[in-house]
């Protein structure tokens, strides 16, 4: 029982981070069919911005997160307008190579600026320690992650389901040509979605800095996880990646907790089986 609640709790916190980082990738891939392997770079950069601001300039955690979100959203729009946009409709290989190039460059830059070691994370006092839930105590930081995750998901859901922007986005993902022909500017829409997705990734990187260590290998080491969330959840949906993130979060935590000698082996195997069973993902359209 003790083990089960631990797995559920830690798995849920982990799933939240995976979801916040990956959800933008699902939307942009679904919308433009762009294979953006460099999505993790935005999360890594967000993590660095957050941690460096907190450690060097004593910026409060929440403000650092907000700055990371805005900075990376802006940066991503610039990249999208100048570089990504030239490759819409290019072959899968070209997109893969281009984004691998971005990964290599960003890894070299962060290594040059901040060295190869993981950045130490000094959480604010309010988030360290344990939180008493009555029947047992849980780490405050992870409880906060779960709460923040649910708030973000609620906001995201409201934004996509209840606003004009969200309706246009859903229309464009469903059928881009039809959406264009009734006058939706899908280019602008895509830039916005790209910025929002990258900003969210940055937020996820910053929020999860204590779970997914911020170091130069971030963008490649966790790439498999981010892509898995998208591939298994299905492109272009909000719900699919969430389910996938939960599966991955619980699965990975359970495996590492119960059979540490096998590590993530089972998780990868299960993901391969899932993808073979549903190549378009659990909630994707074939």
């Amino acid at each position: 029982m003790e083990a089960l609640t631990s797995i559920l709790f830690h798995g849920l916190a982990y799933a939240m981070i995976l979801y916040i980082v990956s959800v933008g990738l699902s939307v942009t891939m679904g919308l433009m069919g762009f294979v953006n392997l460099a999505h993790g770079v935005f999360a890594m950069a967000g993590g660095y911005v957050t941690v460096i601001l907190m450690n060097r300039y004593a910026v409060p955690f929440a403000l650092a997160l907000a700055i990371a979100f805005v900075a990376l959203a802006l940066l991503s729009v610039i990249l999208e307008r100048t570089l990504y946009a030239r490759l819409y409709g290019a072959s899968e290989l070209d997109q893969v190579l281009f984004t691998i190039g971005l990964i290599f460059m960003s890894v070299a830059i962060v290594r040059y600026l901040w060295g190869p070691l993981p950045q130490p994370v000094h959480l604010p006092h309010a988030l360290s320690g344990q939180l008493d839930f009555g029947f047992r105590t849980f780490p405050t930081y992870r409880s906060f992650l779960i709460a923040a995750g649910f708030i973000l998901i609620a906001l995201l859901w409201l934004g996509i389901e209840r606003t004009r922007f969200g309706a246009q986005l859903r229309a464009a993902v469903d059928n881009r040509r039809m959406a264009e022909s009734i006058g939706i500017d899908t280019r602008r829409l895509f830039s916005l979605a790209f910025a929002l997705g990258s900003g969210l990734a940055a937020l996820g990187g910053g929020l999860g800095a204590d779970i997914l260590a911020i170091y130069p290998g971030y963008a490649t080491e966790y790439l498999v996880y981010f892509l898995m969330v998208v591939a298994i959840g299905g492109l272009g949906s909000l719900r699919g990646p969430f389910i996938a993130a939960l599966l991955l979060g619980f699965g990975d935590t359970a495996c590492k907790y119960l059979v540490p000698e096998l590590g993530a082996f089972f998780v990868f195997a299960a993901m391969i089986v899932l993808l073979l069973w549903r190549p378009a993902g659990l909630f994707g359209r074939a």
Partner: protein
Amino acid sequence: MSPVDASIRGHRLRAIELLPWLIAIGGYFGFGDYLTLGSQILIMILFALSLDLVLGYAGIVTLGHSAFFGAGAYAAGIYAAYVTGEPLSGLLIAALTAALIGWISGFVILRTQGLALLMLTLAVTALLAEAANKASFITGGADGLQGVDIDPIFGVFRFDLFGRTAYLYCLAVLFLTWLFARRLVHSSFGRSLVGIRENAARMHAIGSPVRRRLLTVYTISAALAGIAGALLAQTTQFVGLTVLGFQRSGEILIMLVFGGIGRLYGAFVGASLYMIAQDQLAKMDPEFWYFWIGLLLVLLVMFARGGILGLIDRLLGR
């Protein structure tokens, strides 16, 4: 010239195709201290050549080709450490192991396309890397596999400190695999792969067994990559987890793309230049090497699709 004529002409050995071999043999006498780097280059050429078969000819975009390189390296390393140090049987074991993994994984993942396929190639490699990491009682885990002692080739040619034997050994193996690969891509099988790359639906329609063809070339390519991995394990007498890393899959992709894909010789040009540039630039500024490679890659995708050989073709107006 009709396509048939072009195909026949392509099959005939042209004088320029001997150039890499002349350079390689000349290099044996001229490289001096760089002979070890020379062996590494030959190994990477072989690895890139194996990738060219699946990516350049069959059009399968894979992010996980290091799975087979790593499988071969570990198979040869473990064989040498626990069974016998005889190198040629080690190569064979490595090729078979990698081919088997290629066949099994290809059998399941080649049903998919696009993002799912990309993901699956990545996931297979991640799976193997995790297996190698966790099975540390035989692979050495994160510390790497130690105790890889290789016997003399044919019981006569021993691996010397200067890497002379290693260089010639790699060169001989590369030459044989090149002959094989060249024969393969100019065969009707090779032409049908190009057909599948260009339009799989039409190849289906004219009765080509598309999936079987893809699986065959995937298995062959895995075996060649496995041999490359085995050469690395045998000549460096060490196997580390990086042989299975994403970095390696990415790098080999970059080498091939720099040279030019689907041309057989892109592997030779790309791998040589990449390895030499890495050796030189990394000395000056090892941390920033990947930045320049990434930048070059971005520029290449934007302006010079087709790689170096493609650029040369364009300059010559072909």
